[in-house]
């Protein structure tokens, strides 16, 4: 058996080794109505028919038809059933990785109810089995597996950054006892970080540390496993996703924390909270919530005293797809903003209908698709511009990164902040 056939068989096992009826249902449901087209940022901004979500479904279902159905085996032309060959895999790489942010907008609006984003992830899984994940994205996964965080930040650099931030915190709250606890066992909360925070946005760590201080929380960071991200979710390599999720799972158990609080990271929160237990094939014996929910909890319980007049600028909110449409954290960030900011305006559309920032699905890590990524960002730029806001808040560091690039490219003149930064600014310390 040649190498391609070996890989092909591995990819086909993704289609044949079904654990439940979800995939077979979706692969048999599309009626090619094409009404999903206008839900996709790629199609809306390029009018390229290859990018219509149903075309992406078709790439996988055509293979399924060819190898798994009577019609596809004996009358392939009838349903356009296709051989899984190099031409098709090239198309799949381009459209599954290079033209989908996995935002799930097409899923919500599909006339039938097909979870198109799920099928694209299954398509990515097939490509992953064939070793066809774009090297740029795979290198981010490799960094996480080899070094413990996706930016390969050395432990010394990380602890130095935290030591500096702790000094800043002491000054800010005027309390020499204020701290950023590291590796403390038996605490209430093990807090996680997106490695972008220590690397590029340390102020968001300060913000959260100030919030924990104000709320008198018992918490800790781990220096050995703090990375909330899991880029193997984007490559759909379940083994690698399992390895990354297991490390955080083990760390929570090792430190015996009651709760794991996931930093402002859309895909990271999804990958650990919703997908993680399935990667590990076990239920978590601890509670997992996002920092957005925690902030809402603190405010509703009166643990934080806020003065929303401190945040006077007009603020708008970008809803991260994995946190909101695919994660159900919809109202909490609005509740927080209502208490932490005096002027707020929604984008149109917003909430579960919001458009992706354009950087989801691993797009920010895949430089070969940069041009497309910034092309589809026109929609988000337009949404922001129409609000007239001067600050865009988003509870996701991946989105922060993309929104800052959008701000620069489209000259929006906005500041991009995390939710924790807005809350920290509004805190009144007693």
């Amino acid at each position: 058996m040649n190498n391609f056939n070996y890989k092909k068989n591995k990819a086909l096992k993704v289609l044949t080794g079904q654990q439940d009826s979800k995939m077979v249902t979706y692969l048999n449901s599309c009626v090619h109505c094409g009404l999903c087209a206008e839900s996709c940022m790629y199609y809306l901004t390029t009018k390229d028919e290859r990018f219509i979500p149903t075309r992406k479904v078709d790439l996988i279902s055509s293979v399924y038809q060819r190898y798994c159905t009577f019609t596809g085996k004996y009358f392939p032309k009838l349903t356009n059933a296709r051989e899984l060959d190099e031409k098709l895999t090239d198309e799949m790489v381009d459209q599954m990785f290079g033209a989908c942010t996995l935002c799930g907008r097409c899923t919500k609006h599909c006339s039938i109810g097909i979870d198109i984003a799920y099928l694209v992830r299954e398509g990515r899984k097939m490509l992953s089995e064939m070793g066809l994940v774009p090297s740029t994205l795979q290198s981010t996964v490799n960094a996480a597996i080899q070094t413990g965080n996706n930016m390969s930040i050395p432990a010394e650099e990380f602890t130095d950054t935290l030591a500096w931030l702790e000094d800043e915190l002491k000054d800010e709250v005027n309390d020499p006892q204020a701290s950023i606890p590291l590796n403390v066992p038996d605490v209430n909360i093990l807090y996680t970080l997106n490695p972008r925070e220590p690397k590029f946005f340390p102020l968001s760590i300060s913000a959260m540390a100030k919030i924990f201080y104000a709320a008198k929380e018992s918490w800790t960071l781990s220096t050995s496993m703090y990375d909330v991200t899991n880029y193997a979710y984007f490559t759909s390599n379940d083994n690698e996703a399992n390895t990354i999720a297991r490390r955080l799972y083990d760390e929570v158990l090792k430190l015996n924390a009651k709760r794991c609080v996931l930093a402002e990271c859309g895909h990271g929160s999804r990958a650990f909270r919703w997908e993680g237990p399935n990667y590990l094939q076990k239920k978590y014996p601890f509670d997992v919530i996002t920092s957005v929910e925690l902030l809402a909890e603190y405010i509703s319980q009166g643990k934080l005293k806020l003065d929303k007049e401190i945040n006077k600028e007009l603020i708008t909110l970008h809803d991260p797809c994995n946190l909101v449409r695919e994660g159900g954290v919809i109202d909490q960030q609005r509740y927080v903003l209502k208490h932490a900011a005096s002027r707020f305006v929604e984008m149109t559309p917003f909430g579960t209908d919001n458009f992706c920032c354009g950087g989801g699905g691993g797009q920010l890590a895949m430089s070969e698709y940069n041009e497309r990524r910034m092309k589809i960002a026109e929609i988000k730029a337009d949404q922001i511009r129409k609000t007239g806001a001067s600050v865009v808040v988003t509870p996701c560091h991946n989105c922060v990164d993309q929104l800052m690039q959008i701000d620069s490219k489209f000259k929006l003149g906005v500041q991009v902040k995390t939710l924790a930064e807005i809350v920290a600014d509004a805190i009144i310390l007693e």
Partner: protein
Amino acid sequence: MTLYKTISLAAFLICSVILTFHFIRLIRLGSPKDYSQKRGNLKSAISFSFTGAMNPREKESAYMHLPTYAAGLLYHTGTFICFALYFLFFFNVGIADSFHWIFIFVLIASGMSGLGIFIKRLTVIKLKHLSNPDDYISNFLVTGFQIFTLIALLNETYTPYYFIFAAVLFLYLPLGKLKHSLYFFAARYHLGFFYGWRGIWPLKSHGQIK
């Protein structure tokens, strides 16, 4: 039983057996086993998936394409009526005059919707690129079934052709996309399950500030 009815019945049974196989496979494979901590109410979410989530106001595929959506709705209504009428014709059950004319008017409208959808698929470039032969054949057969049902309602002498055409439809149904008559329901179930597990559906709001 006449020969054309026998052929039609045989085709119907073959179709039913194959669809039953598909149904059993779905049941056997079952729902996803999710180890994450459930946050929502599955029953409400699955119910919402079949009701509120199908509301045209909830779906861009509906409110941004209202003529197509309305045509699709009519087309499917006509199809359901045709299947009900098939059994009435088969067992020679009479239809009350008032219903008779209602069915005729609905089938005229649904048949025209079917033709409209067929023409749209042939002429709109975007749709043409999405389509494969099965899309055209499926649309042709279902629209044809509606037209034959209409003719049979108007004039009984054409009933043999009606049953033969129905037989062709039944034999084709499990082969291509017409299988969505079964899988549609499974798709709505799974979507409700997914969004319900995470507490996203039933949607209380799109995120209005409270």
